């Protein structure tokens, strides 16, 4: 299996390490050797038909900040869609930064990959949030896989749980906490009476929140996950514009305390109902199983016959996301023998 990396940041680098560490096990268990032939980052690309030298790639990236300096085949300012369409590789792993405005560069990368007959594994939620029904249709049309385990519950396999453990069950509604950063902020605001700004600063210091926290605190990250879950588990043709979104930046410690007095907590809840979806701060009972603290995530499936089922677990990080991507690669291998 020949693989192109589009994006080579935290997740990309974690993935390459996991693949190297687990190489023997993967070869033995699944009989295939993932071969990284092309890497594209924001400044350029490198390429080796026979497989890139991984330690050298990592060293180059660390030293120069870009793979464009990779000895021999490193090149600057390449167009990633051209590289993808010209390549003979079988799989594209897409981990460029999330963009909820137009999905780029990920959206074009994924479209190009599927159109030219390559499987795609993405950790990038942007393209799915904006165009998931279209991308799934394109994948079906081209008979290729579009995998995205790393986008939702890279840490806790919500998607696989619903798909594999609940077939035949009719899931009527889904609600949950899907963003560790905002959950941490709300927990801190409530427990230590911090203002939103203070709690955010603390989350940033601890590495839970990004420098630009907009996507997390304004609810877009949760909404993107809701879109993916709605499409994949409930077969709804939703995209980001169908989700009614409110973030947590306007919440005050006073409001949280008032809620506490009533035995409820304010959480950023993503919800999928019959024909609508929303992300907004909601008051939920403190003893509701969905009501988890800190950076934890929780998702409750309301089923017709089995009642409510809640899955609780950690959110994603670079390495967990990398391991979700490996799972996807293995499942592509099983289905297509590439």
């Amino acid at each position: 299996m020949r693989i192109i990396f589009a994006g080579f940041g935290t997740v990309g680098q974690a993935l390459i390490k996991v693949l190297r560490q687990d190489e023997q096990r993967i070869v033995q268990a699944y009989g295939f050797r993932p071969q990284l032939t092309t890497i594209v980052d924001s400044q350029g690309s490198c390429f080796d038909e026979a497989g890139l030298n991984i330690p050298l790639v990592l060293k180059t990236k660390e030293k120069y900040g870009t793979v464009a300096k990779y000895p021999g085949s490193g090149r600057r300012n390449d167009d990633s869609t051209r590289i993808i369409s010209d390549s003979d590789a079988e799989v594209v792993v897409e981990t460029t930064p999330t963009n909820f405005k137009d999905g780029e560069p990920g959206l074009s990368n994924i479209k190009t990959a599927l159109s030219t007959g390559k499987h795609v594994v993405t950790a990038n939620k942007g393209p799915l949030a904006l165009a998931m029904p279209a991308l799934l249709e394109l994948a079906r049309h081209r008979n290729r896989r579009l995998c995205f385990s790393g986008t939702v519950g890279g840490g806790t396999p919500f998607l696989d749980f619903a798909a594999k453990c609940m077939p035949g069950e009719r899931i009527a509604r889904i609600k949950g906490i899907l963003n560790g950063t905002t959950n941490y902020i709300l927990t801190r605001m409530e427990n230590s009476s911090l203002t939103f700004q203070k709690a955010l600063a603390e989350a940033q210091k601890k590495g839970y929140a990004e420098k630009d926290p907009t996507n997390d605190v304004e609810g877009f990250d949760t909404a993107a996950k809701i879109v993916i879950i709605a499409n994949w588990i409930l077969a709804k043709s939703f995209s980001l514009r169908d989700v009614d979104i409110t973030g947590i930046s306007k919440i005050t410690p006073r409001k949280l305390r008032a809620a506490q007095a009533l035995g409820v907590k304010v959480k950023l809840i993503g919800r999928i109902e019959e024909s609508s979806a929303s992300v907004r701060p909601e008051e939920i009972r403190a003893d509701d199983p969905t009501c988890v603290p800190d950076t934890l995530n929780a998702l409750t499936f309301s089923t017709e016959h089995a009642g409510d089922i809640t899955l609780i677990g950690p959110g994603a990080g670079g390495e967990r996301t990398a391991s979700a991507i490996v799972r996807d690669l293995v499942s592509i291998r099983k289905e297509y023998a590439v």
Partner: protein
Amino acid sequence: MKFGGTSLSQASKMKNAAKILQKFSASNKIVAVASAIGETTDQLAAIGELAKKGDLKRARKLLSKVQASHRKIVPLIAGKAGTRELLERIEQLNSELERTVEGIAHLRELTPRSRDYLLSFGERLSTPILAETATATGLRTRPFTGAEAGITTDDNFGEAKPLVEISYHQIRQRLEPLWNRKVVPIVTGFVASTVDGSITTLGRGGSDYTAALLGAALAAEEIWIWTDVDGLMTADPRIVKDAVLLPNVSFGEALELSFFGAKMMHPRALQPAAQKKIPVRIKNSSHPSVNGTLVSASELPNGGKVVKAVSLIRDVGIVTVSGTGMMGSPGVAAKVFQTLGSNNVNVMMISQGSSEATISCVVANKEVDRAVRALQLALMGQGFVDKIAEEKDACVIAVVGSGMKGTPGVAARIFTAVARRKVNVRMVAQGSSEYNVSFVVSHTDGAEAVRAIHEEFNLGH
């Protein structure tokens, strides 16, 4: 809104269409869809056949007729400034069209792919002309091919199926921004492209299908189909003098009416609209103020009447398969339909005798012989079937109305009314949808039966 070929067939009609666009764009966001002008699509198809046979002379002659008709219309509709530019565009397309025809003639081959490419010129020529006509009235417009607008299909040339989610996504991306700049996109009907960019056509229902897809993608409030009639009628006015316009029908009823021959949208074309519950309005471009017929998801009764319309399809025949051995051999019916299907015979109605010893199918007159031959080959001499009989020159009467379901006695009223006029019913369809009752009578009785039912249910008010 979509303009049919008859609504664009000459300069004055083009101008009329532009006026309609101008009028309604003042307070609405509009996307226009253009069909090919007049008979262009049929002419292009004929040119293709001639070229394939190597008859380049006649192909060229017809071709220059098509080219000239588009060239001629330009100075009549465009402003001074626009004329030159548009003429250039038309000539460019004309010479591309010429090369295509030459290519087909050289190879003596017309593949579904090259046929789609050839047919696409009808809309590709009409669209910039409509756009320029509208520009001359002061509107800001921009012409698009279906592919440029984002309509993407599978590779089934000739009757390509849209990849709807991809299309919806791209249509939104490409057309919505124009509205903010107050530009009216004008899109070729019928024409789309594959993921790789080869031109495809949407086949039957063509331009209406385009309009429905665009409307569904953009969450339109209504989809308007401009044509040369006021809308759907309670019956063919040539048969029933007091037939009246139907103000509204449901998607289900429209489906039955279109299946049974009413001159309107192809069922395939209605699908995207029905799915997103977007009403489709059929309007007459010569009488834009008439409300036309609204096809929508709601099943409004027509002033308390259970029946809405009655339609007549002429030129059909009945093929009857019978044999005592068919009783208790469940595979025979399936074999009949499979045989007819694989021989491209379209079955309009079926009926099975209560003894299970006969199966009758209604097919078009011109398909009767083919059907009989195919069935003989497939079924005779195996012990089940003794006889395959045919009757030609019959007609089907379809009585349509959603109010019929759950209203007892409708069928009885229909058949009593028909019997009173001494019309002999030859066959009744079974188990078809709850929106219609249909039956077969001799072709000499058809009109009388329609009138009887129209009167019985008071459809003419």
